[in-house]
């Protein structure tokens, strides 16, 4: 009666602290430049070495510019942070895919595409979107810098065992409705803190039918409803995705691995602490109107009225709409847009670029709109070249940039100016997330493409008819 989560968690328990947390063994640790320097410093201060250096991979992504990567980073503070990671990785003997390396890109894109993320693993990173890796059937979650240091020192972490939740999405998705829309729909229903304390397993027909890219997008956004992580049981698609990647097991090791991976599913009598079911037919292309990812709606519906919001939340709701420059009760369609961002660990994979390119093919970018198309990794960038997507995008008037986290959190130069509206395929619409005063509307690559062509919020289904 074990759930998928129980099976992996139980297999990694080293000990349990009396009336305290579990000591959990970690199979894979990813490290980026922003949340690791203080952990490396802590190791140095305690005069420690990594217990298992081969299990950690360092990949700078947050500060990386998306043009001229062959030159040193102009912003000296950013450059210093990226250089610090290089130095730390060298000093402690950790594999490092630095800027310009063919394996560089956003950590949550690079890990899965290289076979560093595998089913059954426990995976952590000082980054909340580590939940992404659960798409391959792993327990993956974000941690703070103190916890990063714990993993460096002991390959373990102390964690209280989360509760389990299963979210089923039955039925078939409509045209132009993607994994991103499932996620924004689910978060809008569960709310931004509704899954706090839980680890989520996604199941049901609509989930099984998602590509691996779609599953990574969905699991990526689990944290936006407060969940510790999200996961999907591995199947043939998962094996297909992993097979032949650089770090995946090979030969006899592979055969042995897949026998184990095929046992990684929730038993039919498994009991979850909470279970919710949604229907794919109810989901339309989504867009957010407020300043947290739970403030999303179907693109053709209206912003809620103040009266429909519970009283304790009205102050935050009004503050949010004021920041966005929107009125309660109004429609989203037709609102003018200034910026479009395609990319991030949420939607920076090949399928996202195929979707965007399919909509803009043969059309032209709207004037007066700035568009950043940022692949999630060099591997994605090369695949876009190979499939001719870059040509399609250029033909339509778009510029194709170099990989990195980019405008998702604007730690590099890709910042949305104050007061401007950006339709963004990233994961957070918090105040100032894409630059001080920037107004972010989260959506899928199709909705982003429709905005890029028309210069305003447009239902992509109209353009694809």
């Amino acid at each position, binding site marked *: 009666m074990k759930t998928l989560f129980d099976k992996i968690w139980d297999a990694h328990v080293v000990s349990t602290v009396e009336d305290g947390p579990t000591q959990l063994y970690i199979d894979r640790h990813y490290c980026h430049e922003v949340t690791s320097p203080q952990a490396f410093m802590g190791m140095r201060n305690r005069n420690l070495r990594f217990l298992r250096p081969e299990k950690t991979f360092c990949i700078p992504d947050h500060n990386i510019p998306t043009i001229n990567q062959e030159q040193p980073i102009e912003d000296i503070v950013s450059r210093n942070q990226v250089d610090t990671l290089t130095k730390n990785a060298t000093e402690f003997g950790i594999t490092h895919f630095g800027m310009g390396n063919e394996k560089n890109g956003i950590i949550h894109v690079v890990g899965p595409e290289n076979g560093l993320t595998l089913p059954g693993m426990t995976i952590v990173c000082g980054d909340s979107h580590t939940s992404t890796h659960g798409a391959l059937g792993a327990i993956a979650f974000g941690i703070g810098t103190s916890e990063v240091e714990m993993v460096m020192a002991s390959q373990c972490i102390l964690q209280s065992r989360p509760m389990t939740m299963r979210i089923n999405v039955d039925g078939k998705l409509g045209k132009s409705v993607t994994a991103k829309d499932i996620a924004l729909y689910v978060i809008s229903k569960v709310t931004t803190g509704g899954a706090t304390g839980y680890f989520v397993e996604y199941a049901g027909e609509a989930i099984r039918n998602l590509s691996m890219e779609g599953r990574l997008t969905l699991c990526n956004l689990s944290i936006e409803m407060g969940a510790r992580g999200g996961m999907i049981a591995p199947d043939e698609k998962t094996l297909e995705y992993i097979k032949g990647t650089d770090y995946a097991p090979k030969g006899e090791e592979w055969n042995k691995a897949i026998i184990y991976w095929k046992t990684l599913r929730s038993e039919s009598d498994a009991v979850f602490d909470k279970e919710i079911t949604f229907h794919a037919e109810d989901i339309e292309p989504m867009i957010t109107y407020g300043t947290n990812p739970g403030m999303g709606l179907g693109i053709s519906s209206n912003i809620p009225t103040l009266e429909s919001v519970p009283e304790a939340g009205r*102050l935050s709701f009004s503050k949010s709409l004021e920041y966005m420059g929107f009125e309660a009760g109004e429609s989203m369609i037709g609102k003018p847009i200034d910026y479009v961002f395609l990319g991030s660990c949420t939607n920076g994979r090949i399928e996202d670029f195929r979707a965007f390119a399919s909509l803009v093919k043969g059309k032209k970018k709207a004037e007066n709109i700035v568009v950043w198309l940022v692949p999630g990794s060099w591997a994605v960038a090369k695949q876009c070249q190979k499939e001719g997507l870059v040509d399609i995008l250029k033909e339509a008037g778009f510029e194709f940039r170099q990989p990195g986290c980019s405008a998702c959190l604007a730690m590099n130069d890709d910042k949305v100016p104050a007061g401007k509206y950006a339709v963004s395929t990233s994961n957070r619409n918090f105040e100032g997330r894409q630059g001080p005063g920037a107004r972010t509307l989260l959506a899928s690559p199709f909705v982003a493409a429709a905005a890029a062509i028309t210069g305003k919020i447009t239902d992509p289904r109209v353009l694809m008819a």
Partner: protein
Amino acid sequence: MKEKFNIIASTCVPLPLENVDTDQIIPARFLKATTKEGFGDNLFRDWRYDKEGNPILSFVLNDPTYSGRILVAGKNFGSGSSREHAAWAVAGYGFRVVVSSFFADIFKNNALNNFVLPVVVSESFLAELFATIKADPKAVVEVDLPNQVIKNKTTGKSETFQISAYKKSCLMNGYDDIDYLLSNKDKIEAWEKK
């Protein structure tokens, strides 16, 4: 920051907003530092200062009426990014306790790892506490970690709060998880051999 924790009685700083995310607590552009110091200066930066860097007088941290070592916040405090910089900013500013009816998971862990105590109270206790502070900004709240009790000294109302015995002892004795894990190396090696 390993300052031992016992009983704290203090006035409070109220922030009655829900879903205060870690991007508000410390915006991403301040995450480029490679040390833990100085984040308190930029706590709630974009609510606290305007574009020119002038204090926004209506924001509570700029209002001399309110001060203290206890931050009282609306539901779901600390959602979003896992950045421990948020906990460093809260601690760096001088808060030792954050009171809310609900915390995001990662922030809660990060706070505890920096000897800042997140205290979860009921919605009604929180609502009353906001009312008390509004009526009297000098109202004192006592947070008693050994007994796990928070008391609104004005109304006399108190509630017990949860914390694992392990974390409680860490906070009270000033040791952290790494100390524990390192003392436990034989178990790690035994697990690896399984």
